[in-house]
């Protein structure tokens, strides 16, 4: 048999094999990203990038704001805090300290809400609190409640997500400090579709003015808006069409762990709130949107939760193939953490100044 004929057969086999895998891959990509049932609006320049700032590490997260100061916490250096003056681009490295030197912790998260900063570990559980400027964290709450997410609402309230001991499901709640601490859980807010843990997973958000709290489901097209007392809940649908979370949970394995059986379809990646606006980061493409755009930018959809409307969308651009890890909005700024860079955008007044709302809030 001729060598050419053998090479031809080898090449044929290789092409068929490679082709088959690529086709299967493209098909699954298509399923994840394409949804022609909704259409986005991209008005010209709702946000304009002013600069990128090199912050040196990709482990920063948004810890809080103090007017034009943005505070970034660091997940690998939990006692370190970076303060960025968004106007002057000055950065200050801050070292926080616990008063209790022998403190034991597993995973710390810092939040800054003037005049205090909070260092929290929901697995121990404890919360330390100190004042901005002094940066010494004193024990504040201990062993009142476990939680897996928490954000301070004001100097004596925290918005948390925890697992209710009654229902064994995720629930939203408020930790309140009066003479002592007590927590109030509302097990009705998160609506179970499957198991009440995985399927309701999402993100706590809060508006900068402290008026509203929110919860963004990751796997369904819904976010919840609440007032600062966690009352008057209002569910709003996003423009996406996935109402039922597409997620599968496996049977417990031999180690008694429960795992996700398949990659869940992430409808909402992350969210942020400002005044009446609810911003949602989504990787899902609508009608007439080009797939290549997702390689260059992350899509942010803007909703008005008081009117219950979708307003518009805009892009936050990737930097050197790094995607937006987290974004936040406050006043005139939209910021995004991308790799080891901080992207700072200015918001266009015409688009974002929707806080003066003349319409009445319609019921619950």
């Amino acid at each position, binding site marked *: 048999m001729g060598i050419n004929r053998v090479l031809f057969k080898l090449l044929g*086999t290789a092409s068929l094999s490679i082709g088959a895998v690529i086709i299967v891959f493209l098909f699954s990509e298509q399923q994840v990203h394409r949804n022609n049932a909704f259409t986005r609006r991209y008005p010209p320049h709702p946000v304009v990038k002013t600069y990128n700032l090199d912050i040196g590490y990709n482990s920063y997260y948004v810890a809080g704001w103090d007017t034009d100061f943005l505070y970034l916490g660091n997940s690998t250096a939990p006692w370190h805090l970076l303060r960025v003056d968004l106007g002057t681009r000055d950065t200050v490295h801050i070292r926080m300290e616990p008063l209790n030197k022998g403190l034991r912790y597993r995973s710390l998260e810092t939040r800054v809400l003037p005049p205090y900063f909070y260092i929290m570990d929901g697995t121990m559980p404890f919360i330390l609190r100190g004042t901005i400027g002094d940066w010494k964290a004193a024990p504040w709450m201990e062993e009142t409640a476990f939680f897996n997410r928490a954000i301070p609402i004001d100097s004596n309230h925290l918005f948390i997500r925890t697992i209710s001991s009654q229902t064994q499901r995720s629930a939203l709640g408020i930790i309140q400090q009066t003479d002592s601490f007590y927590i109030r859980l509302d097990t009705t807010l998160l609506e179970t579709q499957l198991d009440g843990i995985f399927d309701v997973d999402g993100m706590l958000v809060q508006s900068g003015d402290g008026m509203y709290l929110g919860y963004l489901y990751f796997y369904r097209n819904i976010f919840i808006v609440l007032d600062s007392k966690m009352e008057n809940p209002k569910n709003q649908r996003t423009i996406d069409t996935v109402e039922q979370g597409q997620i599968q949970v*496996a049977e417990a394995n031999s180690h008694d762990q429960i795992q996700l059986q398949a990659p869940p379809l992430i409808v909402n990646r992350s969210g942020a709130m400002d005044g009446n606006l609810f911003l949602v980061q989504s990787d899902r493409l609508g009608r007439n949107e080009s797939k290549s755009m997702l390689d260059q930018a992350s899509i942010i959809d803007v909703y008005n939760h008081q009117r219950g409307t979708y307003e518009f969308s805009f892009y936050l651009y990737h930097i050197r193939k790094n995607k937006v890890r987290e974004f936040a909005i406050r006043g005139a700024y939209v910021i995004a953490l991308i790799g080891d860079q901080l992207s700072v955008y200015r918001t266009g007044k015409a688009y974002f100044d929707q806080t003066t709302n003349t319409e009445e809030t319609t019921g619950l």
Partner: protein
Amino acid sequence: MICYKFPQKQSSINLTHESMKVHAVHKKHLITAIVVLFIFLFVYAATSKLMDFQQFTIQLSQSPVLTAYANEAAWGIPVVEYFLVILFVFNEFRLWALYGSFALMVMFTTYIALVINFSDYIPCSCGGVLENMGWTEHIVFNLFFVALAVIGILRLESSDPTQ
């Protein structure tokens, strides 16, 4: 589909013939070594997958490439690997088995290349010691076996007496 016609029977008879030439002995040993390596690889890979079948199924279904076909693939991959081992055992089917192994290793390599370059996250679904390999090492490892298959195929095909 493309159909191949192989004159394996003649070639294997030729190889086991007593009066073969010296270079044919080398050929035979080289091919035997390649066959043994493949048998070892596939028996090991398939068995370690089946030993922790539930974990393997979950890992596959978490893979961004195979999500929709995870259950079929979880059975299919070990079955194909065992099937190739059986083909390797019989001299008449060694060439078929080599082509099959070549196709399978090319598919695995393509899969890894796609996952590394185009996927948002990287799951692992390899069994045993292979689990501890980095993705680059994995590609090198796969390419090594692709090369083995190619060498085996070229040798077997060229030992065809009709050439």
